[in-house]
């Protein structure tokens, strides 16, 4: 009895540093922001000036035109970018999965952009997308197209950010690649013997076998898509005409430009709920399309 409690204690001691970190830097701030979301606080005047206002913040948010604008921008971005990035990542991963000489070099090239900090990437893309001197419009002009002012035109700014995002899908590619490498070769051989062509093999062998990987990447993609911030903050700051006012950017402006901390906290909890709903939808439907190897008793 005594012995058991001692080892128990040791166990708790081992997790203590992590647990304290979680409490101090995650749970604590979360509770604080939950309290704030029902309060009015302009941060400058200090903690004493927090004023409880009930549901006012939420009521005002649902009356705020910019809230809907930012929701629209974020949903369009997520709706387009999540499937787009998944498909492109998978295609690239399949190419990188081929056994050719020097493949490691290509893998490196595709992964490298995701190691560069987002701010540096954004600064570089500002230059690439510059309508006057940018390399993109220079290239377009060679084939006779006059490129638009990508980031300064409300019609193109969001698309420019979506396309730019393709550059940073290295992480997703790597995860797909490891998924692809886990598909046993004999399955392909068996399918080939049965007369399955390359397309059939892709849809009937590859996709089901890597469905857990797709599942994981999809959830991470959705979360990342809804939380998009840095690039828009650095490159467009929500403009022109709020065409790239992402939800998180709107939230940031409320918190640190107009100092409406309560309002911003309420916004963050709404975003939390939105992401939770979408993640739950994916998880709920997953039993229908995600196949786990060796999970045969269910069928």
């Amino acid at each position, binding site marked *: 009895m005594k012995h058991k409690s001692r080892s128990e204690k040791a166990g708790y001691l081992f997790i203590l540093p992590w647990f304290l970190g979680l*409490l*101090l830097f995650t*749970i*604590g*701030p979360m*509770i*604080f922001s939950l309290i704030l979301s029902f309060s009015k606080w*302009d*941060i*400058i*005047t*200090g*903690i004493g000036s927090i004023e409880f206002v009930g549901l006012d913040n939420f009521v005002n948010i649902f009356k705020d035109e910019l809230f809907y604008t930012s929701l629209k921008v974020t949903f369009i971005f997520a709706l387009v970018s999540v499937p787009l990035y998944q498909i492109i990542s998978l295609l690239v991963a399949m190419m990188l999965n081929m056994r050719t000489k020097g493949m490691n070099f290509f893998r490196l090239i595709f992964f490298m952009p995701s190691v560069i900090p987002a701010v540096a990437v954004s600064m570089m893309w500002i230059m690439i997308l*510059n*309508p*006057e*001197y940018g390399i993109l419009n220079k290239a377009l002009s060679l084939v006779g197209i006059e490129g638009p*002012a990508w980031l*300064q*035109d*409300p019609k193109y700014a969001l698309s420019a950010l979506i396309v730019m995002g393709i550059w940073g899908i290295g992480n997703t590619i790597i995860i797909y690649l490891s998924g692809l490498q886990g598909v046993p070769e004999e399955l392909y051989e068996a399918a080939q013997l049965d007369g399955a062509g390359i397309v059939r093999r892709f849809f009937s062998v590859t996709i089901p076998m890597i469905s857990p990987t797709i599942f994981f990447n999809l959830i991470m993609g959705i979360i990342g898509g809804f939380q998009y911030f840095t690039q828009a903050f650095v490159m467009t700051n929500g*403009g*022109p*005409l709020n065409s790239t006012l992402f939800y998180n950017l709107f939230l940031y402006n409320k918190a*640190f430009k107009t*100092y409406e901390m309560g309002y911003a906290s309420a916004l963050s909890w709404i975003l939390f709920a939105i992401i939770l709903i979408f993640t739950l939808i994916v998880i709920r439907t997953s039993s229908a399309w995600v196949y786990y190897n060796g999970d045969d008793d269910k069928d």
Partner: protein
Amino acid sequence: MKKWAILLVVTMMATLVLSACSSGSSETKNESQSGTADQEKVQLKFTVWGDVASAGPEVKLTEEFNKSHPNIEVKFEPVPGDGYGTKLTTSLAAGQAPDVFLIGEGDYYKYVDKGVVEPLDSYLEADKSFDTSMFQKDLLDMGHINGKTYYLPKDFNPLSLWYNKKLFDAAGMEYPNENWTWDDLNAAAKKLTLKDDKGKIKQFGFNATKWEYPIFTYLWSNGTSISNEDGTKAEGFMNSDKTIAAMEKYVAMSKGADKVSPTPQDAETLGGDGSMFMTDKLAMMVTGRWVKYDLDRSKVDYGTSLIPKGADGERGGIIAAAGWAINANSKHKQEAYELVKWLSGKEAQVLRSEKGLVLPATVNELEEVKKTEVKDKPIIDMMAFAKKPVTMVSSNGSLFVEEFNKAMEKILLDQSSVKDALNEAAKNVDSKITK
């Protein structure tokens, strides 16, 4: 049940620890002070935006202050990059803000409104040795809010007209002078706007910026403004017939076939008005004196003149400035006052303006500059025409500016006519004004 109870207790403890962290900070600071060898020494901190390298005078002033005040230990902590406002705000919230900090004129009202800036009147009254009449009256007035003095001047930058001599010479034109009206400027800008063989503009005559300060001076010279005197009403000002007519003319400078100015987007993609000016792609601009630092280090041959007057002879100017403020929650306000006095005083003014980097805020020293510096004379003369932008007369100011900027963006991107956009903006401002 038990698990929940434990979790609850632990989280409550965590929140307690958290709140202790933020509110107890000042006490812990005090403890560490009393722990030092010298019991009497008061510790002060002050901050400005920018990096240490560009704040040479402040570093030197800190050293000298520490030498002449053995009972005070001052630490200078500048904030580099553009995070100054955020950093100051969060540190104020946490009760860890510096005792003395620098504020830009556009935020003077905001910080006073939040009650985080200490009024200086009682300290000034008690201190007969320090005479504030040595400062430029305009600058002192700027720091005067609701009948109290909150800020003492560090430095200031009046707006004026800057022109590229080379481009004027090439066109065989006379330089701008103090009799110019905005119509003269427009006519000159037309002649100075040149196109290449493909019909693309390679040289702009003027930069009709979307930045509100030059626009304010333009509107004032046209006898109108975006707000009433005390910044409480937009209807009938932001959308008055005069304002609409003036803004239509202003916007026409950067739009259409006859444009003489880059659009804000053009200017942004071409590197901003300063670099366009320095590379001989822009002939004229209205901006603050801070641009002089870069211009003097480039090859551009430039001159300055008064901002043009309106058809009725009215003229408007703005002085951008930065002022020292004492944190209302400082533990050592008297010492902080000594520091503010030192940082804005005569020695500091002389030291900062030595190499012509900034203009001295004191009357006598400024007169000296005016006598010797040809390029600075029109800039200093512009002070006589200075008015306060709406952000400096009311805590509603930022509302006016925000809505006006939004309207400008809509107009410049062809989303709305000048009239509709300004009507909407005026309505929005008035609906949001609370005081």
